[in-house]
Every structure is written in C-alpha cells, then in structure tokens.
C-alpha cells in the first residue's frame, strides 16, 4: 500500500515537472518572439520615412533643416541596425532614440502649419507616423511584459527548481538608455517672456 502511494506521489511530481518545464520553454520563446517584434517595427519605421519625406518635400522648403535631420537620423539608424552585433545594442538604441526625437520635432513643425496639414496626404502620413511610433513602444512594452512574466516564473517556487533544466535565464528588460528621455519635461505656463 505504501508503495502505491509513493508511486502516485512520484507520478504527480513528474507530471508537474513536465508542465513546469514546458511552461518555461514556451515563455522563453514568447520572450524571444516579442524581442524580434521590436526589430520588425523599427524596420517598418525606416521604410516609412522616405515616403513621408517625399510627400512633404515640396511644401516644406521653409523647414529644410527639420526634414534633413529626420533623413539623417533615419540613415544612421539603418546603418547602425545593418551591422549590429550582440554588443552593438547600445548603438542601435541610441540611433533609434535620435530618430524618435527628430520625428517628434517634425510632428511639432507640421502642427504649426495648418495649410500643410490640409494639403493632400500629409495628415494621412501623420497618422501612419503616430501609429508607427505607437507600434514601437507597444512592441517594447509587450516585450517587457512577457520578459517579466518569464523572469517571475523562473524565480517563483516551485517552478524555480526546473529553471535550470529548462535552461532558463533571466531576460533583460528594455530600458530608456537616453537620460534626456527620462527627464520630466519642464512646462512653463507663466506666460512671462524668457530672460
């Protein structure tokens, strides 16, 4: 009788081990997939920018510098992404951050010229741009959510006992590398002329 009970307990433990192992493997792959998704969305942004620039080039002669900044940042991001090794992540991140900054400056400029927004498909492109920026940040957020789930599973008892067998290791979260982005923007509403 004792043997039977022991066997049942052993069976339950083995079954649990299998499900814990499979759960960890599936989370690991989800995390990898979520990380790739960020790349996919960055690529999408690179492809979109030439169209955007072509659409507004004629109408925006007076804001050439803004447009050029966007193009330059885009090309830098593309080349940083092209020869990215495992340790080039920082460079890619910095280039993409610059592109984000250039694009948001561009958006501010477009908002200043209502006639530009009204011409042709600029508003459509603006929607595309908003969506692309959203996709990138949602892809990062999705990666962080999945990675957090994965890390938590690895650390929690009793799944943590199977983390080694499933070759699970903590995934790094995506963080803001640029200190400037973290700073809270200062908004001055006092309407006083700046000294």
């Amino acid at each position: 009788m004792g043997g039977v009970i022991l066997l049942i307990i052993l069976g339950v433990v083995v079954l649990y081990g299998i499900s814990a192992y499979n759960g960890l493997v599936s989370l690991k792959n989800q995390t990898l997939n979520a990380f790739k998704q960020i790349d996919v969305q960055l690529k999408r942004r690179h492809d979109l920018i030439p169209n955007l620039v072509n659409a507004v080039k004629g109408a925006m002669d007076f804001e050439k510098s803004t447009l050029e900044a966007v193009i330059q940042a885009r090309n830098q991001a593309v080349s940083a992404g092209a020869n990215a090794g495992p340790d080039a992540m920082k460079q890619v991140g910095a280039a993409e951050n610059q592109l984000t900054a250039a694009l948001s400056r561009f958006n501010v400029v477009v908002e200043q010229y209502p006639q530009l927004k009204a011409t042709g498909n600029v508003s459509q492109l603006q929607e595309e741009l908003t969506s692309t920026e959203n996709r990138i940040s949602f892809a990062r957020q999705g990666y962080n959510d999945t990675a957090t789930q994965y890390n938590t599973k690895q650390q929690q008892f009793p799944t943590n006992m199977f983390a080694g067998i499933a070759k699970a290791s903590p995934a790094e979260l995506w963080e803001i590398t640029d200190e400037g982005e973290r700073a809270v923007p200062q908004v001055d509403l006092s309407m006083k002329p700046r000294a």
Partner: protein
Amino acid sequence: MTDDTGLNLFQQQEANRRRTIWLVIAFVLFFAWLGFGGDFAYWLATSDAAPETYHHTFPWFGLVMTAIGAGIARYGFVTGPNKVLWSTGAVKLEDPQTDKERQLVNVVEEMAIAAGIPRPDIWIVPDSDPNAFATGLDQGHSHIAVTQGLLDICSRDELQAVVAHELGHVKNLDVRLMTTLAALVGAVALMHDGVGRLLSSGGRLGGGSRGGKGKGGGIVVIVVLVLWVISWILAPIIAQFLAMAVSRKREYLADAMGAQFTRNPMALATALTKIESADAPTTSIKRGAAHLCIADPLGRRANLREGGLSDLFATHPPMAARIARLKGMAYQRLKAEGQFPAA
C-alpha cells in the same frame, strides 16, 4: 462584493482570474450533480435489491447528458463566430477608405502587437450606437467588430482603449469560455423537460426497492432524490446565474487587460462614459452576442446599479463600477510613478 478599486491593474487581473476559476468549478460541480446525481440515487436505490433484479451501476444518464452538452458546445464553437457576425450585418474592412477607417486598422494592429497576438479580422457594424465586440475561437482566428457610431464619437486614444478591451477578451479565450457556458446553459434548459418524465419512473423504481434490507438506505435515497429534483427544478435559473457571474468577472478582467495593453486606463474610462451617455440600445446586436460586447447592447436596466436581484442576471457589471475601477488603476499608476502623494 469586494472593492477592487484600490488594486493596480495586475492585481485586478489576478483577482478576476481567481474568481472565474471558482465560478467555473462551481458550474462544473453543479452540472455534474445534475447529470450524475440521478445515477447516484438510482444506484443507492438498487444496490440493496435482489441479485436477479436490475442494478444501476453504469451512470448512463450522466454520460448521455455530458455528451449532449458537449455536442451543443461543439456546434456553438464551429458556427458561433460566423453566425454572430452575420446576424449583426457587419461588413469586413479590407480596404480602408476614410481617415477614421485607416485609424481603426492602425489601432487594431498596434493593440495586437501590445497583446502579442496575430492581427484579428476587422469588421464594421453599420449602427449609429457606439459599441464593439470580439469573437473567434482562438487567438489565431479572431474577429473584432466596432459600430460606425463608435468610430464617429471616439478619439484615437479612446478607440484604442475599446479595441484593447476586446483584444483582452480574445487573449483570455473568453469567447471559448462563454460559448461553452452558454451551450451548457442551453443543454440544461433542453433537458429540463425530459428529466421530469424520467423522474417519475425513477421514483417508482426507488419505491419498489425499499422492501429490501435496511430502512436507513431508503431515507438516504429519498434525501438524495429530493435534492436532485429540487436542483433540476431550479437548474435553468442557477445555470444562467452562474454563467452571468462568469461573464461579469470576464468584463472586469478585459478592462484590466485593456489597461495593460494601452497603459492608459483613463482612455477606457472616458470611452465607457461616452458609450454610456449614448444610452440607446444597439439594435443590430442581438441578445446572443450581448456577452461579447463592451457594453450591454440591450441597454438593460440591470446594468445600471449594483446589488439586488436584477444584478444576478446582467451580462455586464454596472458602468459606474467599471469606471471606478479604471480610475483606481490610473490612480495607482500615477502613485507608482511618484506623481501623486501616497494616499
């Protein structure tokens, strides 16, 4: 009813998942009792009988009931999504023309990325009342439909929040859960009548066997049988009540999932306020799809206040409670970011 407004969005998700599990366990136990309770009583009644008479050892009644329930559920699975979409007159959005339609496509794709699921098919329901619903059997084959009215009144952020709520349903496999529960409720109602006939014959057999050995066994048989009969009389109501309780928990959960995808609970709160103030029933969405919508399309009064008997049969929790919880999430979020002093 516990107050969840003090929890952040992940804690709310956790709490709602836990409650759903208990409700589903209660549902399964109740269903098993309906099916196998009669077999149990019959077995008790015939166990003391003479060796040559019938002994009820094989629970055929429970098994037949399970098979019928599974059959109806399966049928609901396969035909459900198309039937729902067809009945609302939804039009598939394949080639977006207006700015709003393009925005909808973009927003759905963004939210699919945030949720980590494949992009669902997008449908537009030609109805001026703002509402939205999701359907589909699994994450790979899902559909999301919004009414024209919703497109017209919502800002980009609000549209995003509504879509996020619907994708929350998809991600949680709520459509599958609710279809199963609805099928089981249907099976219960269907067999409600047939059981009445069976009970009379079961009672006769039980009476016949009482001439056997112990009197104690006879009392147990009667108690089990009476409880079982009462369960069957109340079965349609109890099954419906359990299914609706699950539905309400899933609404709260989808709200919290939506808040996770957008990280902007206030957008959903304002969208719900707009949908609420439109205050007209969504005529093109029928009762069968009500539990899939973001707001009860029938505009039933039961959804307006919490508590009371009417609350037991609502598919959705009261709007005010949902908005309060979303505001709670927004507050917790600001507090975590240090923009609010700790309360």
